[in-house]
């Protein structure tokens, strides 16, 4: 065997990047992502909310359970958002409420994401397991989330853990299903065939190649799940089975405020603004991540 000289093909010292139909966005990687204005704004708002949640109570010096103030006060220097129907400081309660909802988000959504992704992959990759898994999901998805929550709250006792479990149970099949659809679309692409022809086994193919290419839908769904988690927490509180009273949560505050929507509309504004800000941040972050991956503005 003769060693060929590399000369006939001229090694590329600086191969030019040609034909990049997909322009690359601003900087790649985490840095570039973090520099996007939407991301910066969202992170600032989130940081503010976290600050409110953890530093706010210290600033007001109020106890979220203290009922000694007059009830249903309007905003004032002492009570920045006023007081509730039992005379508790609404700002402090909102701060603690953010903690609860963040806790639910931070635990439930990632767990559902991972669990759902695994099941979605299993379902998309295994012809044998696909139908059973999907039919089980049909059953779970067909259960209205509120009824699931109600049952789980009764089984596990109402409180944050039950809310978290409910969010996980409700979200997992959704993640699994959107991922499955995305995976099936990816599977039709040539590179999957190419990998398979190279002898890449299914585990590696799905985890290392297909999954990363399906992140888009997972990102979108994560944003949506975050908002759904907040909704579910509130809806369970709505039927009295959310977090354990007198613990505040955003849903609890919102529910309580509904009675006073006409007489004291400001009561409801606080929690609505906070929930909207939370949801906005999560959707904006996921939008930006999506755009970043595609190298768009």
């Amino acid at each position: 065997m003769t060693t060929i000289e590399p000369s006939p093909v001229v090694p590329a010292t600086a191969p030019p990047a040609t034909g990049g139909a997909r322009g690359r966005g601003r900087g790649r990687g985490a840095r570039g992502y973090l520099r996007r204005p939407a991301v910066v704004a969202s992170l600032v708002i989130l940081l503010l909310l976290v600050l409110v949640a953890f530093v706010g109570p210290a600033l007001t010096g109020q106890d979220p359970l203290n009922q000694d103030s007059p009830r249903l006060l309007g905003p004032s220097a002492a009570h920045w958002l006023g007081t509730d129907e039992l005379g508790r400081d609404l700002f402090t309660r909102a701060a603690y409420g953010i903690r609860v909802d963040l806790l639910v988000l931070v635990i439930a959504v990632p767990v559902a994401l991972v669990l759902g992704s695994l099941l979605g992959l299993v379902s998309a990759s295994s012809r044998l397991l696909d139908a059973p898994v999907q039919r089980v999901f049909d059953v779970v998805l067909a259960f209205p989330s509120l009824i699931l929550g109600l049952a789980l709250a009764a089984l596990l006792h109402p409180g944050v853990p039950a809310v978290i479990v409910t969010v996980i149970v409700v979200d997992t099949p959704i993640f699994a299903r959107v991922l499955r659809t995305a995976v099936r679309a990816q599977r039709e692409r040539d590179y999957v065939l190419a990998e398979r022809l190279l002898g890449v086994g299914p585990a590696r193919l799905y985890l290392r190649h297909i999954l990363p290419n399906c992140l888009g839908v997972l990102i979108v769904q994560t944003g949506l799940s975050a908002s759904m988690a907040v909704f579910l927490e509130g809806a369970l509180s709505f039927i009295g089975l959310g977090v354990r009273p007198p613990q505040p949560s955003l849903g609890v505050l919102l529910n309580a405020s509904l009675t006073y929507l006409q007489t004291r509309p400001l009561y409801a504004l606080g929690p609505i603004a906070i929930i909207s800000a939370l949801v906005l941040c999560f959707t904006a972050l996921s939008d930006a991540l999506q755009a970043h991956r595609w190298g768009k503005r």
Partner: protein
Amino acid sequence: MTTTDTMPAGDDALLSVRDLTVGFGPGGATTVVNGVNLSIGAGEIVGIVGESGSGKSVTVMAMLGHIRAGGVVRSGEVRYRGRDVLCLPPDELRRYRRQTVAAVLQDPMNSLNPVRQIGRQFDETLALAGGRTATQRRERAVELLRLVGIPDPQRQLSAYPHQFSGGMRQRLLIALALANEPEVIVADEPTTALDVTVQAQILALFAELNRRLGTAIVLVSHNVGTVVELCHRVAVMYGGRVVEELPAANVTTGGSHPYTRALVAAIPGLRTERSRLLPVIPGYPPVPGTLPPGCPFTARCDRVTPRCRDERPPTVAEAASLRLECWNPVPAGPGDAGSGAGAGNEPGPTGAPPTRPPVTVRDGAPAIECRALVRHFAAERLFRKRGAGLVRAVDGVDLAVAPGEALGIVGESGSGKSTLARLLVGADRPDSGTVRWQDTDPASLRGAPARAARRSVQMLFQDALGSMDPRATVGDLVAEPMLVHGLEPDAKRRRAAVTELLALVGLDASAADRRPVEFSGGQRQRIAIARALSTRPAVLVCDEPMSALDVSLQAQMVNLFATLRAELGLTYLFISHDLALVRYLADRCAVMYLGELVELGPAAELCERPLHPYTASLVSAAAATDPQDGQVRQRIVLRGDPPSPVAPPSGCRFHTRCPIGPLAHPDRTVCRDQAPRLAEVAPGRLAACHFAGELRLDPGTTETAAVGSTS
């Protein structure tokens, strides 16, 4: 030598690009088109050639009033009837596009809406022009499909894009562009995925349109031969500039710019010396945005003068060319092919390209073989299954490739080449018949043994980019097969092996950290090869690996294939519609028609003396566009509609178009009644024809060729 005006075609031009400068990136800082001037007169056919990335597509897109997202027109204009197309308000721009220009985009695989039936897409386009009833539009659509040679047009109108082969999709796009009989057709690589006969047909179609309706055509192509045959005028682009513009007839006889010469030299012809490597232009096209102040070709030119580096050459008119930008043009003179550019990368002492390393075909069990292979596609319909709509993509193919051999497969678009390739590598399952790799039946294996067996048979896809995980780095892509097959379990050694493989295909080690999108088409194809090689395969099945590459890249790739074969003892199965390429690369060549093999024999002989009339028509078409072939040859253009693969003709499937069959000789009913078997006609040469070898292609005896053909 006289300095010419920047507007050579004067003001009678129908459409003219003036001083166009387009940049990409932030603020359009990266210049990709750098002061291009080009004009198209009414009824004129203008060709644009040049290497990949030279700005051809951007220029022609601008003619349509479109700049891809991220692009900025920094200066210049595109004039049509006194107005700047780039500044038209949206509704006028739309009217311009509906009535005046039509485009054939470069990427045929993705230019048709995948979820809409072809008929609807035609209907939509036809409706834009107005003036036709629905039935008339349908009739026109059928007519258009027939015009571009899509078999069974009535049925195909209700098919979806994914049910067409690559070449068919390209023809659909052409048909769409013709639909409303525009004044100008802008065709960006319209024939890359087409086999020579269909390509000839399309070119004839363009020519006829031009003759009959006076349609002006802008033809962008890598394929210098095609351009020369069709066009009146050719612009050669390099580094975002038109470096030379010359009458088409002068291109093959040798332009004045060294680049033009080098481009022509790199094309393999039917007479190219098989014992030598192809001449290539050394180096790479310049990276946009880093253009040198002087002539962009300086770095790769062998006629460099000191001025070249620092001063942009002026635009002048020369004897042979209409416009030229060169300080040191090649003196006019007939095609001394090797003299322009580097005449091959590493000029040997004689000035000729290095010799091609020798190879040996080994004895033993065939490396890959198939028996009576059949693959039929059912039309997927939601509610009803109309008729027995089975597309007989591969219909009983027997083939055996010896270890170390290179077998080329050519054939008409849609004849089942890709399907056959997919079946051979196990990407698809046959409906019947067997595939064997080195005496094992891959279909009988499951799980890990199957994956291990896969290692020995690898495939190169036509679309190299599509075959690579867009998110993986090149290093990962190349290393992965070694990892999964346990060939190189140690990470460090694997990395070293990756570097080695990249070097083998001529890529720098730094390429490992980048993603496939960041490379040019040719480089991507090399990455794909490196990846395929990393499994240490015995067989490489290549499905049109070159069709998307420009000539100089193609020459580099061809050389690479040739060298690798000698070096690694690879067995090749090489699918292409470029007969010259197959002749150069392959030992034997198989010809497919409508799912069947019609001829099989040593490549060179097959091109010299085809036995099957279909092969003969292929060869004649290839010869006609062979820029290095000085003679003007008769071309056999096949008559009649291509038959539908759903209901292939009885007897010999070629008889409906055969120049020596019942069409020409009504007494030859045997062709209609009896299917010829693929039989040995001469030693080592098989053909499936009742009258094998009758049609001759000698330059002198054009009489026979004229049967059923036009020039």
